[in-house]
């Protein structure tokens, strides 16, 4: 493994590479410690550009090695210039990171791929997770590819498609009566009592590192430079802090010039404890009971909340939220202007971006990257009531001319 150990982010206590995630001394979260000696600048850039078109091109900067026969090749998704959406929002240099283009159509394939590599290292036979849906998809698919047993825990009330697109890989799907936060707590207790690999619990130090690749790729795709601002949907906050870590590591390794990226977090108003703390100018993130159309962001007690606040404040970014109505409108706006159908989390991102742009909080010339991290097909419920019905005609020219031609503006 590229990892030389684990280190407590709070007290600095060091541990060997194990499937553990909490410091025994202070309960602080453990993170992977690397030896980056000898990895720098031009030679490292060459290694990356010669690597596969997936997250594994950054293998030198990830904690566990790719397992070729288990690889679904996630990542290296398109970074798209958003001319039409940019025009609507008054932003001249807007890009979309289209991470719906992953094996199970969300960014969770990145983190699970890295967790899976750690599973191989530690020799587990069951792969599990607590999920709002996308992670369940990714765990079930990766476990299938690796021939591991998958047991995924989801809260009740998830979008139907997220349950079906998990079940098809034949994992054991366990629906827990409660919210994601209840599922999360249960999985922590399970991880304490049973030797299971729970991707986002005891493998969390490894798993979470996969999200750095969302920062690496954007910097590489912009021509080896950091953007001026990123807008990121925030549930637990893990992806947000890891994207920042990705830019930071690239700077430290001499791959890009030092540049402060304005870290901008987008939350759903019905589950916006970090946005509330930001608005109220406090460091304390008070948990909420989620009620939002953006179910993939419905995490009421975000573990990385304080780190998100700190980063947004220190980089000149922001934390803001969008209502369900604004989210659904933004999903449509993105689809209509850019041909990209996102799940509601992407509507949260675009909704908040639009809000900040209209408020004049963003310089129109900034190079901005908005992260679209999950596909709309898994959450059809969010838009099916607002999408226009088809126009029905008989198969005759007369019917066409009467009902269609005028609408097409001819």
């Amino acid at each position, binding site marked *: 493994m590229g990892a030389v150990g684990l280190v407590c982010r709070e007290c600095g206590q060091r541990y060997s590479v194990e499937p553990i995630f*909490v410091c025994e001394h202070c309960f602080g979260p453990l*993170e992977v410690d690397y030896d980056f000696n000898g990895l720098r600048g031009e030679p490292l850039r060459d290694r990356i550009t010669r690597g596969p078109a997936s997250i594994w091109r950054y293998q030198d900067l990830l904690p566990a090695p790719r397992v070729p026969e288990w690889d679904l090749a996630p990542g290296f998704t398109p970074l798209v210039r958003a001319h039409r959406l940019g025009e609507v929002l008054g932003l001249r240099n807007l890009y979309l990171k289209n991470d719906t283009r992953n094996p199970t159509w969300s960014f969770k394939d990145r983190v699970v791929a890295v967790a899976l590599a750690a599973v191989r290292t530690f020799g587990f036979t069951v792969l599990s997770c607590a999920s709002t849906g996308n992670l369940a998809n990714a765990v079930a698919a990766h476990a299938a590819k690796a021939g591991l047993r998958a047991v995924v825990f989801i809260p009740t009330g998830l979008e139907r498609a997220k349950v079906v697109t998990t079940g098809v890989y034949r994992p054991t799907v366990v629906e827990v009566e409660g919210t994601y936060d209840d599922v999360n*707590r249960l999985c*922590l207790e399970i991880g304490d009592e049973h030797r299971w690999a729970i991707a986002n619990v005891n493998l969390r130090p490894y798993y979470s590192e996969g999200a750095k690749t969302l920062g690496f790729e954007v910097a590489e795709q912009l021509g080896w430079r950091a953007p001026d601002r990123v807008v990121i949907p925030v549930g637990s906050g893990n992806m947000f*802090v*890891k994207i920042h870590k990705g830019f930071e590591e690239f700077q430290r390794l001499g791959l890009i010039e030092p540049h402060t990226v304005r870290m901008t977090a987008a939350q759903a108003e019905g589950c916006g404890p970090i946005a509330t703390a930001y608005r109220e100018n406090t460091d304390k993130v008070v948990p909420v009971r989620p009620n939002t159309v953006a179910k993939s962001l419905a995490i009421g007690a975000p573990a990385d909340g304080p780190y998100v606040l700190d980063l947004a404040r220190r980089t000149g970014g922001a934390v803001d939220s969008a209502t369900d109505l604004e989210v659904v409108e933004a999903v449509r706006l993105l689809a209509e202007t850019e041909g990209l159908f996102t799940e509601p989390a992407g509507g949260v991102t675009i909704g908040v971006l639009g809000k900040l742009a209209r408020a004049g909080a963003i310089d129109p010339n900034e190079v901005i990257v908005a992260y679209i991290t999950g596909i709309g097909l898994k959450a059809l419920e969010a838009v099916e009531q607002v999408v226009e019905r088809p126009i029905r005609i008989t198969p005759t020219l007369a019917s066409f001319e009467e009902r269609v031609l005028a609408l097409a503006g001819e």
Partner: protein
Amino acid sequence: MAVQVRIPTPLRRITNGERIIEVRGGSLAQAIDELDRRFPGIRAKILDDRGEVLQFVNIFVNEQDIRFLSGLRTPLDEGAEVSIVPAMAGGSRPQIA
């Protein structure tokens, strides 16, 4: 009130490997005091100097996050289940490059 406290792995060294400890206490604060009398040092792993729950510790009473109840003043009924659980942060310590 006799209540059950579930001890997470990182604290089991203090409880000599015990996973479930039965203590008495009419409130969560009393239960933690009693726990600390029997296993000295455990309180300091859960609460800070001002007696507030540490940032990376979550406590649940009968599956409810105490931040939705009355915090450490949450009353405990006979047979209540208290669970001490680490928060699952997984990001990184922000540093300016």
